[in-house]
């Protein structure tokens, strides 16, 4: 499958959810699909798998900050040069997304990272243990959130407060 085919197939798949998604093409080889509801995430990814569309290259977490009150979770699927991004916006408080592990087992590492770094609960994760942060890291401190200051975090870690 080449880049153009992948982009065309991804467009066709997403058209099935056209009234609940917003699709844009920020760069020639990229397709950015904003989902209105997290319930649609797994069905769309199953549809991608059925079409043999790419592989999950990464899951990116984005914190839009306390004023905005939202986190974004980006699922990047790559085929040849094409990068198809499924973009989910979730509230910062009680943030949660469904786990992809039942469809894509290799998502586990990415989801565990997302969960501990951004404080996003991943529902249905088979092994929700910490992957990167130390075992004695304080509950409720999510280092990649924007309201966590890097310098303060460093000194707290050095002083053993976290």
């Amino acid at each position, binding site marked *: 499958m080449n*880049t153009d085919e992948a982009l065309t197939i991804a467009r066709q798949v997403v058209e099935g959810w056209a009234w609940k998604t917003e699709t844009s093409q*920020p*760069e020639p*080889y*990229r397709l950015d699909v904003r989902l209105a509801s997290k319930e649609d995430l797994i069905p769309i990814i199953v549809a991608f798998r059925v079409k043999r569309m790419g*592989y*999950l*290259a*990464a899951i*990116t*977490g*984005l*914190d839009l900050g306390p004023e905005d009150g939202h986190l974004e979770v*980006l699922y*990047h699927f*790559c085929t*040849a*040069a094409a*990068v198809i*991004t499924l973009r989910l916006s979730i509230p910062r408080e009680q943030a949660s997304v469904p786990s992809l592990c039942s469809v*894509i*087992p*290799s998502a*586990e*590492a*990415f989801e565990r990272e997302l969960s501990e770094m951004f404080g996003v609960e991943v529902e249905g994760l088979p*092994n929700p*243990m*910490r*992957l*990167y*942060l*130390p075992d004695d890291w304080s509950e409720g401190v999510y*280092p*990649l959130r924007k309201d*966590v200051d*890097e*310098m303060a*975090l460093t000194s707290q870690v050095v002083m053993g407060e976290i």
Partner: protein
Amino acid sequence: MEKVQTSRSFTVPIGPQHPALKEPEHFLITVDGEIVTKAVVRLGYAHRGVEKATESRNWVQNIYILERICGICSHIHATAYCLGVEKLAGVEVPPRAQAIRVLVAEMERIHSHLLWLGVAAHEAGFDTLFMYSWRDRETIMDLLESLSGNRVNYSVNLLGGVKFDVDDELARLIYDGIDFLEKRTQHYLDVVTSDAMFLQRTRGIGTMTRSQADVLGTVGPTARASNVYRDIRVEAPYGAYGDFPVKIVLDERGDLEARFVVRIKELFESYRVIREILDNLPAGELSTRMPRRIQEGETVSRVEAPRGELFYFIKSNGTDTPERIKVRTPTICNMMSVVKLAVGHQLADVPMIVVGIDPCFSCNDRMTVVDRGQGQRQGWTWEALRRYGIRHYQRLAR
């Protein structure tokens, strides 16, 4: 810790750390007699918060911090970052700079693959091959030093170009080094595909089928050894790979031997591309002007590191510092394949299976065998596990 079902199964924690490790891992391996029944991996012992650190440093400072994510593939990290930021800024980098980036990237691949060959040979108990391949690796390290002044962290990249030029004298040194290495590499290819003792450790071990490799999301030589067509240099050429195309190296067998063969054959591709670049190095400037503030936007930058696809997601908010930089390294993708592949193999094969993915791994030097049935603890080191594996196969050979 994994619960033990029968009094005969053991849980073997391997790792995590040693002062010299650059990427320590901790494996928890459950064995029933000799056979591995479950493997769990725990990472993060060297997590330095680089992604967070980039958010409070400016675009230029971040080149240096990102280059230090990995000591082996430092150049490719900086390249992925610079290509992404240049794309966001809409800056066109001079062709000579792009060619030099690719030249250094291929030299880096050579040093990384030769390093891996040595490490893998050492784990198999083939220390002669280890010492020869590391001796030969010095050739490329010297060339990198001649080019940039550094053996590692060459710091070749700038936003908007490169710092170092390649003149005729240096080009001649590189030609000579490559000629020497090509002969040696042919010898290594012969050795790893014909030495009976070595093949015993690699042939048919850790086999991963094409669909497994695809579903597990493996990248780089690990995927290509299972016949998965996945190489960013070929699929989405970046830098000067459009002008100097690379041929993809695939193998159908999917076992450890295939991973050796794919990496060694990739070396020949690297030698060929380096010669081609030196023959046709475009004339012109080495760098172009970059704005201090990068316009708002998001981009994805994918490059082929020695270990596989390196993925950068970069978001700018229009200031002189990035809003977010996400780095997904190839080892994390491949590491998940290890815990699946190890199941069903002998404990003696674990070191080779782990090393087979080239996991930015030098020595998991501390290991404990926990006998859950007796409740006793016994200390093992990675070295002890390695020796155990070698002795196991020596016994078989008798």
